[in-house]
Structure formats: structure tokens, C-alpha cells
């Protein structure tokens, strides 16, 4: 189903939409506070962006360097061209080591590859251990946000889920009680697991080490208790040297949740004695994205989720409406790169307000890339007739300043003088779900000219 339709479904519960909107905006505000506290924040963003650009332009060299160093450290390195190969490799390692139960810590990559259903079909128990991930796993839903996977669920809903699956007592959604119960449940799973699968936040070419960041400590509980640790990484996670972590770790948690750093930033360099460590490097469309000059920078993403928390569309349409592993602004760039026909509506799920680009810690020009996708899509993909003609008119209007002026004036005139039933009719999609602004006399242009005269 298309984004707009899914969003409409999400919008049926108005109070929940308002709650969702507020919850995410709260996180965005925390991000602002954290960012303003750092001297040289903008320099950090510039550095992060330039480091990532350097990585992309030398990716083959860094990948080989990383691989050689990881092998020297006693780690086994695997390469997967797509999701299927990734799943096969992981399953192969589990078979070889005779593993029946695994614990997983949050990894959008394994989500992207649909690892869980693959392993489950092969008789392996897979437990997601990040609390939010466990909640959506019990609900048999995908995560709706990359940092806050269960942000779309109320505490009452979690209460019910836990009663059903974990046998907890009704508690009116008391988060402390629910978290404590989840802790007990998951400890038991950690202690019994034979292997742990984690994601990778950063892979360092210079050392062959990887860094995994969590607040709960679940990646560590899994990896240090099990005999086998499998770390799955998208190939774009590389950074050249360890000192660059200083830049990225300062940006990541502040941008994600407003914390100065995640509770645990674990640096895995060598496997513990008597254990195995594997790293699976995954392409799955990334080399193709690398070839697209206009969209290459989307590979710089460090998955902080800030663009989602700030996006007025995401906040009011919910992550599931994007129908993709990575939702929100950055997902709307990545998804069409994978399947243009299936995701052709996503670049339109944006106001192009630019807020995403403003908060992005690695300075990806997100809104510009969305606009570029729109240009490609309106040319190449058949559009519903209404959207196409509206876009054409909009394009003409924006391109012509006289026309823009005229349309502005006349729509202000019309908004002021058209009967309400017409403004809020089915024909005017912009009147749907929102009150249109009260019309003041004059526009910016007129105001600006007046101001100039008075100077």
C-alpha cells in the first residue's frame, strides 16, 4: 500500500498521532540541547561528513585494510553480496558450531536482510534482546523507528503483550515493572544462547576492530556469554582510523537521543580466548548506491534517527507507513535506490522543509536528494494523474517569479474569500487533516520591499 494510504490509516487514531508527534519532538528537543552544549558542533559535523566522503572514495582500500587487520586479530571475515548470501553465511556459521538458540542485539542490517524468518525457518530460536525490538518481535511487527523500534506502541499495549507472551501481571503499563520483567526474561535467554548476533556501528580500517553502541548492554550480554559472536555490518560502516571515533561517537548519541554518549560503546578487537568471532561484510545494493552521484552521500548515514524525529511527515504518519526497513527521510532516499517502482511514492512523503538536513550529524543533504528522486520519478515512473499535473503546475509556478507572485496573491485572496466548504473539500488535499493558516494581508516579498523603503 502506498505511503499516503498507510498514513491515513495511522491518522485514524488522532490522539495517538498527537502522542507520537509529541514523543518524537521531545527527542528532537533533547538533541538540540545536547548539540548546543558542544563547542565546535558544526566543525564535528563537517569533519564527519568529510571523513565519510573520504571513506566512500577509498572504500575498496579501507575494506581490504580492515579485513587484513581483523584476520590478524583472529576474526573470521565473510563477504555477502546480498541479503540471501548474508543469511546463508550466518546460518552456515551456526550450523558449523551446532547452534540452536541465538540472541540478537538491534541491527537494522539483519532486519533489512530478513534474517529472523530465515533462521526460524531453519529451526533456530532467535530472540531480539533490545527491549524495543523484543516488544515488536512479540507483536510480530517490524520496528517503526531505527533507534526507538517500539515508539508506536503505548505502554498499555506493551502491558498486554507481556501478559500474553511473558505471563506478567496486569500493571496499567507501569514501565518500571515491565522493564524489570523483560530483564528477567532476557537474562534467561542470554544465559542459554549459543551464539550472539550483533550489528556494527563503526568498523575501523586501521585496527580491524568494531564498535557496537547500546544503552541496555544487550549486545555485550549476548556476545560475552555466548561462544560465538557474529557481527553483521553494512560495508559503509567503515571509518579510517580509531581517532575518528572521537568525532562520530560525539555526534551519534547526542543526535539520536540527546545523551552525551550511549551507555556502552564497546570496542571489540579480538575474540575472547575459547570463543569465535565472525564479521559479515554486506553489500546488498550499497555498491550500486555508490555509483549514483546524486545519492552517494546517503551512504554516510550513521543511523542516529535524528531526521525521523524532526520530520513533520514521519512524526504524523508513523514509521510503518513507509513500508521499508529504514523509514523516514533517509529511508525515503535509500528505498527507491533498491526498488524504484515499489517505493516511488516515498520521496513525496516530505515537505522539503529541510529540517532533516539541518539535524543530520553527517550533513547529508537529505531534502535535496529527495527532490532529486522526485525529478527522476516524475520522469520515469507512471504517476497518478492528479499528482503529476499538480507537480507540473507547481514546477511552472516555482520556476517563474511573476507567476509565483500572482499565484501567491490569488491563493491568499481565495483562502480569505472562498467559502469554508470549498477550502476543506475533497478536492483540496492540503485542507485535509489541517486548518489552513489564517491569511494576513501582504506577503514576504511585499513586506521586504516595504522594509527596504523604510530603511
Amino acid at each position, binding site marked *: 500500500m502506498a505511503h499516503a494510504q498507510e498514513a491515513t490509516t495511522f491518522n485514524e487514531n488522532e490522539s495517538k498521532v498527537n502522542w507520537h508527534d509529541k514523543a518524537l519532538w521531545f527527542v528532537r528537543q533533547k538533541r538540540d540541547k545536547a548539540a548546543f552544549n558542544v563547542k565546535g558542533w558544526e566543525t564535528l559535523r563537517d569533519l564527519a561528513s568529510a571523513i565519510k566522503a573520504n571513506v566512500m572514495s*577509498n572504500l575498496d582500500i579501507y575494506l581490504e585494510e580492515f579485513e587484513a587487520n581483523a584476520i590478524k586479530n583472529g576474526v573470521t571475515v565473510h563477504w555477502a553480496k546480498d541479503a540471501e548470501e548474508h543469511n546463508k553465511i550466518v546460518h552456515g556459521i551456526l550450523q558449523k558450531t551446532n547452534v540452536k538458540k541465538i540472541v540478537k542485539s538491534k541491527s537494522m542490517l539483519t532486519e533489512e536482510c530478513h534474517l529472523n524468518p530465515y533462521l526460524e525457518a531453519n529451526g533456530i530460536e532467535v530472540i531480539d534482546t533490545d527491549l524495543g525490538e523484543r516488544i515488536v518481535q512479540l507483536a510480530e511487527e517490524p520496528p517503526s523507528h531505527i533507534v526507538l523500534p517500539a515508539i508506536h506502541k503505548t505502554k498499555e499495549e506493551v502491558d498486554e503483550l507481556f501478559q500474553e507472551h511473558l505471563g506478567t501481571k496486569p500493571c496499567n503499563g507501569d514501565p518500571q515493572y515491565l522493564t524489570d520483567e523483560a530483564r528477567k526474561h532476557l537474562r534467561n535467554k542470554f544465559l542459554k544462547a549459543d551464539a550472539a548476533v550483533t550489528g556494527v556501528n563503526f568498523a575501523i580500517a586501521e585496527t580491524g576492530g568494531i564498535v557496537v553502541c547500546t544503552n541496555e548492554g544487550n549486545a555485550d550480554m549476548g556476545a*560475552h556469554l555466548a561462544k560465538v559472536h557474529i557481527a553483521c555490518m553494512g560495508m559503509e560502516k567503515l571509518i579510517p582510523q580509531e581517532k575518528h571515533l572521537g568525532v562520530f561517537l560525539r555526534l551519534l548519541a547526542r543526535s539520536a537521543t540527546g545523551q552525551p554518549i550511549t551507555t556502552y560503546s564497546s570496542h571489540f578487537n579480538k575474540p575472547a580466548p575459547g570463543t569465535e568471532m565472525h564479521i559479515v561484510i554486506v553489500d546488498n545494493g550499497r*555498491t550500486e548506491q555508490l555509483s549514483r552521484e546524486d545519492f552517494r552521500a546517503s551512504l554516510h548515514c550513521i543511523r542516529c534517527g535524528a531526521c525521523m524525529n524532526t520530520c513533520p511527515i514521519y512524526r504524523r504518519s508513523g514509521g510503518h507507513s513507509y513500508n521499508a526497513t529504514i523509514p523516514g527521510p533517509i529511508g525515503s532516499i535509500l528505498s527507491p535506490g533498491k526498488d524504484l517502482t515499489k517505493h516511488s511514492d516515498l520521496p513525496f512523503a516530505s515537505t522539503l522543509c529541510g529540517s532533516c538536513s539541518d539535524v543530520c550529524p553527517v550533513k547529508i543533504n537529505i531534502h535535496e536528494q529527495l527532490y532529486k528522486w522526485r525529478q527522476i520519478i516524475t520522469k520515469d515512473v507512471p504517476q497518478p494523474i492528479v499528482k503529476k499535473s499538480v507537480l507540473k503546475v507547481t514546477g511552472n509556478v516555482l520556476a517563474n517569479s511573476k507567476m509565483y507572485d500572482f499565484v501567491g496573491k490569488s491563493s491568499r485572496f481565495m483562502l480569505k474569500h472562498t467559502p469554508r466548504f470549498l477550502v476543506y473539500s475533497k478536492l483540496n488535499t492540503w485542507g485535509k487533516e489541517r486548518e489552513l493558516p489564517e491569511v494576513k494581508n501582504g506577503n514576504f516579498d511585499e513586506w521586504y520591499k516595504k522594509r527596504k523603503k523604510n530603511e
Partner: protein
Amino acid sequence: MSRESILNAVRKNKPEALPLPEIDLNVFAEDKDLVKTFIENVQFVGGRAIVLESTDTIDAKIKEFYPHASKIVSCTTESSLGNISISAATEPHGLESIDLAIVKGDLAVSENGAVWIEENDFTIRVLPFITNDLVLIVNKEDIHLHLHDAYETISKRDRTFGLFLSGPSKTADIEQCLVIGAQGAISLTVLIL
């Protein structure tokens, strides 16, 4: 082999070489009270940090904070409260019932309240995560301004496993309500010497 085909595709698709930027640390220099900022940040992330006047008071302080801890692992010479000894041969699963672990941190970071600890500081990797409560001890002079400084020190070492640990385990996954004590240690106290 996928390895070759991936690397070849990268070679074909990558853009022209771009330089690696220099990091000018002067931009981030600040004249701050490192200890004070560190303590504030530890509190901000849900932990507790205090300055101790002398090493002799360590045990008394820990007892005051954790009066009910009975199974204690101490990996430091600064405290004598440890009553369970561990070695490289200890089975990690056996640490499940530990009440308290005491570990000496190598360095700390003022900007985020994090303490850097390494495998050789705590012997068994899972210890600081699986313990119910955690006490870290750091020296005042090992508190760095920010992560850049910290990496200057730790990058030079040959390491197996290490981490920046900032506060107790926590989650906000249920309706964005912050709950302390998810999978890892439920509380964190940092004693500054």
C-alpha cells in the same frame, strides 16, 4: 567469490579520491573544571560520582552505598571488599549471581561522564554488564576533557576488548519513559581519587 565481485564493483563505482580531513583539536579546546563537569555528566546519565579524599575511605563508602551486597568481585587493589575471586578461567555464566563488581577505570571523559575500562581491568568480559551493581574507580588526573583526548591515549595500546561506559544500563523503549536497569548493571557509582 563475492569478495572479489564486491571489491570490483566498489572500484568501478567509487568517486574520485577525496582527502582525509585533519582534525584541529583547538576548535574543541575548553577551559573547564574537568572533575566537576565529569560528576555532573555522570549524574545526567543516571549514575553517581563522588570525590574521595583518601584511598582509605573507599571500602567504607562502597559499604555505605551498597549495604546489602554480599557477592562481591573486586578487580582492584584499592578495595578489599571482594569475596569472590575470578580468573581468566572463570566461566562467565557463573557470574550471574554477582551483586557488585568493583573495577579500576583507565581514564574518564569529562564531556560525557564515560569511563574507559579494558578487558585486563576486569578479567572476564561480561563482568561489568552481568553484575547487579557496578563501582568504577578513577584517578582525578586521568579525567580527559573530551573523547578526542581519550583516544589519543587508548589508540596507542594493543587491546582485545574495551569500552566507554557511561552510567547504568537503561532504556526508554516503553513509551519513552526512562527506566534504569535494562539488561546490564542496575546502578553505577564512580569513585574519584
